[in-house]
């Protein structure tokens, strides 16, 4: 675990406090003062003790540009998810089962582990791909219909659009 400076810790503490408070409001779905007060203290204590474990993001994630790209990312991901469902439906309903499975690998430029995890999760939800392993910066992807075994082209085909947006967020 890397050592953090005080300002980094404070920034993580505040962002996890905000996120947990949002979660609290979503769970209780009420705006009564008493419940909000209990929520403020409970989430403050939790985020104080988990500041070393909470590695996903810092306060910088609240900048409007990043929020815009996050919304864009969610929309792109939803479209990919719907596409992949129709893809599965098409393959399942075709009598001859049009598959040509294989495992391809490619390298990603994403810096942090958290962003790699997000990319791997999104790859699993895109049409015809399933992430099997990440070793350092190399992704191993099971592809239901292999079009190319070349890492560069496979990267463009599978992860290009996601990484472009993720690089702007993280």
């Amino acid at each position, binding site marked *: 675990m890397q050592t953090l400076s005080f300002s980094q810790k404070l920034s993580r503490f505040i962002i996890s406090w905000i996120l947990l408070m949002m*979660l609290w*409001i*979503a*769970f209780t*779905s009420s705006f009564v003062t008493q419940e909000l007060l209990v929520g403020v203290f409970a989430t403050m204590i939790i985020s104080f003790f988990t500041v070393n474990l909470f590695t996903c993001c810092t306060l910088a994630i609240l900048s409007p540009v990043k929020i815009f790209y996050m919304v864009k990312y969610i929309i792109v991901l939803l479209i990919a*998810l*719907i596409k*992949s*469902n129709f*893809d*599965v*439906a098409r*393959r*399942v*309903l075709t009598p001859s*089962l049009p*598959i*040509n*499975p*294989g*495992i*391809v*690998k490619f390298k990603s430029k994403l810096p942090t582990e958290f962003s790699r995890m997000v990319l*791997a*999760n*999104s790859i*699993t*939800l895109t*049409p*015809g*791909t*399933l*992430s*099997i*392993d990440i*070793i350092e910066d190399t992704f*191993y992807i*099971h592809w*239901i219909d*292999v079009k190319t*075994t070349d890492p560069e082209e496979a990267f463009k085909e599978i992860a290009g659009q996601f990484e472009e947006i993720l690089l702007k967020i993280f």
Partner: protein
Amino acid sequence: MSIMEIIGGILIITGSIFLFLGSLGILRMPDIYNRIQAGTKATTLGAMSLILGVGFLEPSWLLKILIIIIFIAYSNPLSSHALARAMYKRKWYPLIKGDPEKMDAYREVNTNKEKEEVKS
């Protein structure tokens, strides 16, 4: 019937259709990795749209349903990834049409590890 109920009903029906297609995929696909693929995608969107449909029928639950949807979208790919990786480590190699050396890039990692273990 209000518009909310109609939208909710449509969402629930779409979700169950996708879930059905996913289970059909699990039956029809030839090996474990393809089955995981069909299962993951269909259950993610199917469960999400089914639960969202319930949220439209019962609007006071919408916020909690949003949490459930985020959790499904987050944990479903993770679990399928863990399953696939575990199966590969147990040497259940994927079905491959054609040359396994070329089409299976992950095998080099595993065979290298085995060689190191034999040496040490």
